[in-house]
């Protein structure tokens, strides 16, 4: 057979079929949610005070968490990527551990460490009178505990891919390590940095287990959106549904907006 026909690219149907099942699996819960949503009560519920409080608290804490993750996470990522020190693998494993750990366990660990009778918390209390549980600070700590690894590991991966000779050149030109880090290293990994920040922020926004265990659940102080949603499940399933939708809408629109704004034209970073 000497056919000179141009083969049209034939897609393997088996793969498409299996992939479609995966897509359906992820999509159907959202449809299920939409299906049960009492739309007529939407505005009534989202304008309620406790919902507005929870929303505002979630926005505030997740943004503060993102900033804290940036300030502490980026230097840590740099250290992990650039300096060969003892315990580096241990620290990296620690980061991964807190990513895969059930957040409730993280919350219990935080409680037994920073709680009033905790390893460190007892001194915070007796020396400075600082009590962390049941405060908004505890919410941010719980969020940082689960969210920071996402930023650290993303930024570290980007730093590893960056040619170190850029930093070498900058050093020979007289740039101090800090100046080089700010002016050369950070701008070069900007896409991954934003990807890491967005991931950490999204993780913080959705945080539930560590927050309720360590920070408790008090409207206006520690009750973030996920906690309010859970609390509403019993008293008012309809508002739980609407809260869930609200969270999905916020997370989704910000992910989309940021993708276009920061991650649009680049192949680096995460394929958001």
């Amino acid at each position, binding site marked *: 057979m000497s056919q000179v026909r141009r083969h049209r690219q034939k897609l393997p149907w088996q793969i498409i079929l299996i992939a479609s099942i995966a897509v359906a699996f992820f999509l159907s819960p959202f449809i299920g949610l939409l299906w049960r949503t009492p739309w007529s009560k939407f505005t009534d519920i989202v304008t309620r005070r406790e919902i507005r409080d929870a929303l505002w608290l979630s926005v505030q804490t997740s943004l503060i968490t993102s900033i804290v993750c940036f300030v502490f996470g980026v230097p840590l990522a740099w250290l992990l990527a650039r300096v060969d020190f003892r315990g580096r693998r241990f620290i990296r494993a620690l980061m991964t551990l807190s990513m895969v750990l059930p957040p409730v366990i993280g919350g219990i660990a935080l409680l037994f460490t920073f709680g009033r009778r905790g390893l460190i918390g007892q001194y915070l209390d007796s020396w400075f009178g600082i009590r962390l549980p049941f405060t908004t600070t505890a919410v941010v700590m719980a969020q940082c505990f689960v969210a920071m690894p996402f930023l650290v590991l993303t930024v570290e991966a980007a730093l590893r891919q960056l040619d170190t000779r850029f930093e070498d050149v900058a050093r020979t030109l007289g*740039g101090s390590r800090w100046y080089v880090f700010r002016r050369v290293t950070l701008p070069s990994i900007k896409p991954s940095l934003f990807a890491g920040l967005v991931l950490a922020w999204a993780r913080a926004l959705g945080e539930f287990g560590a927050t309720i265990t360590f920070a408790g659940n008090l409207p206006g102080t520690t009750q973030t959106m996920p906690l309010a949603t859970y609390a509403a499940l019993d008293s008012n399933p309809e508002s739980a549904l609407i809260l869930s939708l609200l969270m999905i809408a916020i997370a989704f629109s910000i992910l989309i907006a940021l993708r276009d704004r920061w991650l649009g034209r680049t192949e680096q970073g995460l394929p958001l």
Partner: protein
Amino acid sequence: MTLDTRFTLSRGTFTLDVNLSFNEGEVVAIMGPNGSGKSTFLHAIAGLLPVTSGMVVLNGETFDDATTEAFLEPTQRNVGIVFQGGLLFETMNVLENIVFGLRARKIKQSIAAAQAEPLISQFGLSGLLERQPRELSGGQAQRVAITRALITQPKVLLLDEPMSGLDTSTRQLVREDFREVLASFAGYRILVTHDVEDALAIADRIIELDHGKVVWNGSTSDYRNKPR
């Protein structure tokens, strides 16, 4: 006035072992196959890698001495380095790249730009200042990289494979260009290349490395007549 390098530098199983002296005003080409230690040698002079034993001394000033553990940071050595392809900072335009060394010394942007002006016009880059690195040709990027290295008036200029990666048709032109550029700088000039033609065309002296050892050290004319 000399640059003296008498050291060993080990990285894993590889050891670079040299005892070389350079004179001010001389253009020296360092040749050798991949993994012969050429780049490691430049790194040791620039202070990007510390020596394992021995020392690096420039005009009597100790850069690195393994016995006294004296080590001058790359920021303080005033050694300019140019890598293959120029390695311009991609997040900055041409002007920002050129004045980087001045800005790192806390000189204001406007003053730095004025200070850079003579070099910029000397290298014919006045029309390219607003361009992004990716909008430059290979030759242009190379010129910008050299200007960037010279802006801080270094005493030593190190060039790591500056011409590889350029296509053969422009290579001849760039080589001429390059000789001119190098001639405008009076300090120590050390060029790493694996291309014999480049070395013969540009250098006064050729040093050949293999497996971390010096296997040839002599004038370019001697090298040309060297039996192969």
